[in-house]
């Protein structure tokens, strides 16, 4: 049911873990559906995402989308990162089963929330 690329990311997920003192953290999903994704970002003075990590509770699609979004966003600036959508994440994986498009394809949302968190923190300073 999953593409080879989904299974490859599920089997060898990139950037698993968390970043201590992350500049931004974003979490999406809910336990009712059984998918929770948390993304941590480290951003430098030029607004480049230098490091990104994730932790996810969820199905194969949830883990693979989390993994691939970290790969897509590393080294990008914040504006470029905000252009990544859930749809682009699914495309990058060679597509997802229809029933996974809504509940398990939220990794870009988690990334956007992490960026929002970063901006809020900056505004507080």
């Amino acid at each position, binding site marked *: 049911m*999953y593409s080879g690329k989904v299974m490859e990311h599920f089997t060898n997920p990139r950037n698993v873990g968390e970043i201590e003192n992350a500049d931004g953290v974003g979490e999406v999903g809910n336990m009712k*559906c059984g998918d929770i994704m948390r993304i941590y970002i480290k951003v430098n003075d030029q607004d480049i995402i230098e490091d990104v990590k994730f*932790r996810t*509770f969820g199905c194969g699609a949830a883990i693979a989308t989390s993994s691939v979004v970290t790969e897509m966003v590393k080294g990008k600036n914040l504006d470029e990162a905000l252009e990544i959508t859930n749809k682009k994440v699914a495309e990058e994986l060679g597509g997802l089963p229809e029933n996974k498009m809504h*509940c398990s394809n939220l990794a870009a949302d988690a990334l956007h929330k992490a960026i929002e968190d970063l901006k809020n923190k900056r505004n507080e300073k």
Partner: protein
Amino acid sequence: MKKIYLDHGATTQVNPDVLDAMVPYFAEFYGNPSSIHSFGRETKKALEVAREKVAAGIGAEPREIVFTSGGTESDNIAIRGVARALQKKGNHLITSAVEHHAVLDVCLALQKEGYELTLLPVDEYGMVSAKDVEAAITDKTILISIMMANNEVGTVMPIAEIGKLARERGIIFHTDAVQAIGLLPLNVNDLYCDLLSLSAHKFYGPKGAGILYVRKGTKLAVFNFGGAQERKMRPGTENVPGIIGMGKAVEVVVADREKRAARISSLRDKLIQGLLKIEDTKLNGHPEQRLPGNVNVSVKYVEGESMILSLDLKGIAASSGSACTSGSLDPSHVLLAMGLDHQLAHGSLRMTLGADNTEEEIDYVLEVMPEIVARLRSMSPFYASSKKE
């Protein structure tokens, strides 16, 4: 890579003797049992021999056996049939919150049509209490339907007790025994049931063949029309090869039931004990009143589908009650009815053992399972935070 099948609750491999019995009925004896010529008479006779085998296997009379396409159809014919036939007598149905959807969804559909429905709760082990059944009965109750053993968590219900109290009150009692035959003692008289559903592919028979036992005198309204087959309760040309195979399968599984159940139970207990050695795991279902082949554990901090995928990569076939695998947005209704929280319900893993499993296979599962859980937990936000506290 060796492949290990631990999903016998979903379906089973056709027994070789069953397959041998079926083969001639595809191209050699292919007559329509309703035809009066020799081709038809041959298959008609074979059909009646299969009916006798099934009846003998469950303590029924041959004319009380209705051949269907499977468990779902049997449940539909039984429940809708009684509800419509007895609607002048009453409009109240009793079932449990942990029934298979083939029973639950029919009852919910009838509720929408205006029937009163009592959905009995279960205890933490998924057990229905006979006392609760008794308390729910009103003078309008026309049908009680409680499964013999739960398909997800393996809990074996007090069916004889429930059947007896239904019989004493003149209420029709149906049981879905799809998971039970060949594993538990099954005699329609000892269970006091009026209707009982079975499905061939769950007990080493073919897919597409099922049984509805209908105790003589039980009135059923019919919903399908077009032929006189199966005394009009299931019109349409019979699945002859499937039914012949099913007759053989009943014979095979009933004959060595005790020996097989004992062997499967000991493998089950070994697997349960091994899995519970992994920290933060919990057995779902009753510790003793349990189907011989059923193992169901919740693994905290991880989600079921990701465990199924990981096991599949190791050649092991299992199932889960997580939303992703239940085909809906919610995890298993059975686990939620037992009071599990969403995380534990999503983290459930079901392994159902059968006649073909070996001790070496169980050893292999127990060898790979800790690595799989550790890997998925290393990705889980909950495991990381729980270890910090």
